[in-house]
């Protein structure tokens, strides 16, 4: 992905998800594959509202929470987003994505 283009991410409307302890449990609506997201990935996924660009999510939510270089965090975030998109649990676009989901609930 070219760095001068914005990447927008949104949670897929067909997934199942719930917080369980410190991890997010996500099931793909496409093929029922089950994933767990670690705390960093969970922050990114929760923030994927379709309206906030990925670089802003990384800057405001990841870099403030974890000791990580912004360029490293951005590279990891792009890789994670593309991986999640391949499994149908995240939508990626160069334009804002309509109809963001409500935040996911669950027990911590």
């Amino acid at each position, binding site marked *: 992905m070219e760095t001068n283009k914005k990447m927008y991410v949104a949670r897929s*409307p067909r997934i199942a998800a719930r917080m*369980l302890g410190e991890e997010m449990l996500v099931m793909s609506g496409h093929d029922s594959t089950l994933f767990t997201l670690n705390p960093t990935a969970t922050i990114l996924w929760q923030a994927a509202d379709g309206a906030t660009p990925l670089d802003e999510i990384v800057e405001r939510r990841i870099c403030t929470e974890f000791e990580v270089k912004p360029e490293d965090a951005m590279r990891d975030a792009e890789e994670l987003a593309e991986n999640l998109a391949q499994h149908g649990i995240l939508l990626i676009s160069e334009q804002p994505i309509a109809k963001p989901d409500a935040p996911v609930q669950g027990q911590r």
Partner: protein
Amino acid sequence: MSALLQEMGDRALRLGVPFSAQLDLTYRCNEQCVHCYLDHDDHGEMTTVEIKNLLKEMAEAGVFILTFSGGEIFLRKDFFEILECARDLTFCIKLKTNAVLIREAQAARLRDLGVQSVQISIYSHRPEVHDAITKVKGSLRRSIAAIRFLKSQGLKVIMANVLMTGNMQDYHGVRALAEELGAEYTLDPTITPMMDGDRSIVDLNAGESALRELFRDEMFVGNAEEFCAPPPPPDAESMSSLPCSAGHTACYISPYGEFYPCVQFPLSCGNVRQQRFIDIWRDSEQLKEVRSIRLKDLSGCSQCAHGSTCTRCPGLAFMEGNMRGPSTADCEKSFARTGIPSVNLLAKKEKAAPPRLVQIQLVPAITGNRLSGIGAVA
């Protein structure tokens, strides 16, 4: 179950989270199955608003796997409104239905709403047998048509084959039908008592010889020799094990808001119309009691050879009168599988044995002499 799902279930147990729940939306039904355990009259179902509020509470409490069942769920006019609410709350949604009311449009909508699986009751591949059980002519034809609609939308369909005296010979045919339709297949050879305690339908259970035959059918059990092998003696780990997930990570809510550990465990723990879901889950004395039970606490079962391998259902035990006692239906299955009677079956046999015609016993001395004698007692 995937290893990850098992791991998440174990974590939910450690965290005290109700990982899965079944919510029956109605007990009304458009079939009248001969073995059904429900009273189909409407005694005051929860409203749409009540159900939506309950779903929010369940999501907040951590419920991930949510099964909508009944009765027939498609009889509720607000079914898709409820389903949309559940979708917005990101549950993993499973449905149990007879599918008679599912046509192309409904199947497409279920796909759009990301339903994880649809389980459909099929009793036989022969219309005359299936329809005799549901008491609705044409019901098999309609259910099969629905399965085709659902499969054409790419949905996962599970054909659930409950076995009883009337269809015991047909499970090969149902399995073949499932393969033909691209559906998964599951069978259940247990007819449970009605929720009000009426046990008359239990007589529909297939007998021991039919179970024995089923348990030696390698198409269903894999290696029959292994499946039917004598059980290993229970060890310390199995003595401390939990009977099942009911009340530990799973629960059941009736259409009237009653909260039970499981659909087969009618021990009322509260009502979601009066209390919050999480408050019942955390504070119910009944649930605390259910959670306290381990194999070593069970009368009979703790001394039984089948202790480590038995499929004992605590709900069926409860319906027999003692949640710390045996579930005879499972004792019978263990016996049919291994040929070894359970402690419970041996006790029942002894109790049922006809009285001996002559018993020999000591009678008390009748004189000042230390005289003892032999008396015949009828």
